[in-house]
């Protein structure tokens, strides 16, 4: 709204802009916004009379209509080829991201496969967290937020953990330096251990001694794991947090991802939190956000490999993956496996099983898709083949 007001103000001062805006107003529904903006700018720079401008806009509209995908075009096949062919150029090696030092993020073909397979968790989950105005300009404050997010377990601050067979107790030696750096006190650790309710907890100098109630070697072994993994601070799943300066603000990058928990942390900008775990985005922010994330992630992979794939192909894939309201993978358990046609499914994988199942269930095939019509040798419903003829019978007495 504010934008419109500003425009009318500018128009008053400039009759040429008014003229252009009047010309373009008829095309608002016909042309995309980006084209209109571009036309407005270009027309303004040229010295033309109204008639010439009108002709230009008309021509642009014609060219736009000509550029649209025609009905019956195999847009999906074109998208598959356009992403698949450059995909063969990608190195199979997992590349490591040079942008964030010390943090490895899967890229290249493995990452692309991960995205279209709709894996529940990516092999290297990572988050990008921006901070609020109060915290983003100071390293001290950014580190403070980071310490709230980074998960600290006993194993991160312990020098050693040993089981004393004589007294049947665990001796955990805490590294004081590290503990101090992470802002954790010995007492706090002891209290956390007490809450585990496994036995008596005592503090002896730098050591914490736990005397478990059980002595069975099996349970002791498992207990050791539990103690080491006890969370003292931070968010579950976030193994490491790196503070990085980007421009004039500090940004946090994490190893591990937990979107719903990070959103609750004080000092972050919750509206700019990003994770590469797409299913987590779908769960917390909804399917539409997941769609944008798929586009962003897939396009980023292709772009980083220097492959020039048109974004619209990637958008089509993301649309197909999210059109049922849930993320579907492109493959056996998703798009290809849910096809309604038996023959199309049989053509994809495990042919005999699909045919047998269909036969025993008495399934029918309406022969509406491309694959099944290729199999039976009919013309396929693509291009000119999509046109079907329906007859409308005259009503009685007419």
């Amino acid at each position, binding site marked *: 709204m504010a934008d419109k007001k500003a425009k009318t103000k500018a128009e008053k001062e400039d009759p040429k802009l008014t003229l252009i805006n009047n010309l373009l107003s008829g095309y608002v529904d016909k042309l*995309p*916004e*980006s*084209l*209109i*903006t571009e036309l407005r700018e270009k027309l303004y720079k040229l010295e033309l009379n109204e008639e010439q401008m009108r002709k230009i806009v008309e021509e642009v509209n014609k060219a736009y209509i000509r550029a649209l995908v025609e009905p019956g075009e195999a847009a999906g096949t074109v998208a598959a080829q356009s992403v698949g062919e450059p995909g063969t150029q990608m190195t199979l090696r997992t590349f490591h991201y040079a942008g964030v030092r010390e943090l490895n993020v899967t890229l290249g073909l493995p990452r692309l496969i991960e995205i279209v397979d709709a894996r529940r968790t990516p092999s290297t989950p990572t988050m990008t967290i921006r901070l*609020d105005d109060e915290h983003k300009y100071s390293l001290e404050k950014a580190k403070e937020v980071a310490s709230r997010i980074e998960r600290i377990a006993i194993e991160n601050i312990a020098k050693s953990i040993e089981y004393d067979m004589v007294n049947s107790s665990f001796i955990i030696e805490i590294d004081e330096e590290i503990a101090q750096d992470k802002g954790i006190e010995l007492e706090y650790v002891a209290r956390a251990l007490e809450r585990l309710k496994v036995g008596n907890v005592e503090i002896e100098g730098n050591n914490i001694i736990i005397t478990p109630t059980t002595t069975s070697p099996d349970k002791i072994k498992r207990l050791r794991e539990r103690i080491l993994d006890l969370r003292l601070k931070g968010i579950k799943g976030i193994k490491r947090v790196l503070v990085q300066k980007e421009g004039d603000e500090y940004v946090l990058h994490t190893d591990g991802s937990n979107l719903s928990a990070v*959103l*609750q942390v*004080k*000092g972050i*900008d*919750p*509206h*700019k*939190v*990003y994770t590469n775990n797409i299913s987590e*985005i779908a*769960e*917390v*922010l*909804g*399917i*539409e*956000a997941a769609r*944008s*994330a798929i586009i962003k992630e897939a396009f980023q992979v292709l772009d980083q490999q220097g492959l020039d794939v048109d*974004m*619209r192909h990637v*958008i089509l894939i993301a*649309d197909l993956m*999210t*059109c*049922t*309201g*849930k993320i579907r993978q492109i493959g056996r358990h998703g798009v290809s496996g849910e096809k309604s046609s038996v023959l199309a499914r049989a053509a994809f994988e495990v042919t005999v099983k699909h045919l047998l199942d269909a036969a025993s269930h008495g399934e029918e095939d309406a022969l509406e898709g491309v694959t099944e019509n290729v199999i039976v040798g009919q013309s396929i419903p693509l291009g000119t083949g999509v046109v079907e003829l329906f007859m409308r019978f005259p009503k009685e007495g007419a």
Partner: protein
Amino acid sequence: MVKFDILKHELVPKFTILSKEEVEALRQTYGIRKEHLPWIRKSDPICKVLGAKPGDVLKIERNSEVAGKSIAYRYVVPG
């Protein structure tokens, strides 16, 4: 602390629930049934915030890199 509002997250586009008349007009222009639109589940966080019920149609104003702004629709389904 900034209060988290899901509708303001940078990944979430603008949503509006269409009125009955608007849905009818949409059906007429494209010659489709509501189910032919892409779906969104009732359990989707966005539907919960907006209070959308199965049968509603949501209008989505996406910021597209290709077209500047693009408009899409989703049909609310149970589940």
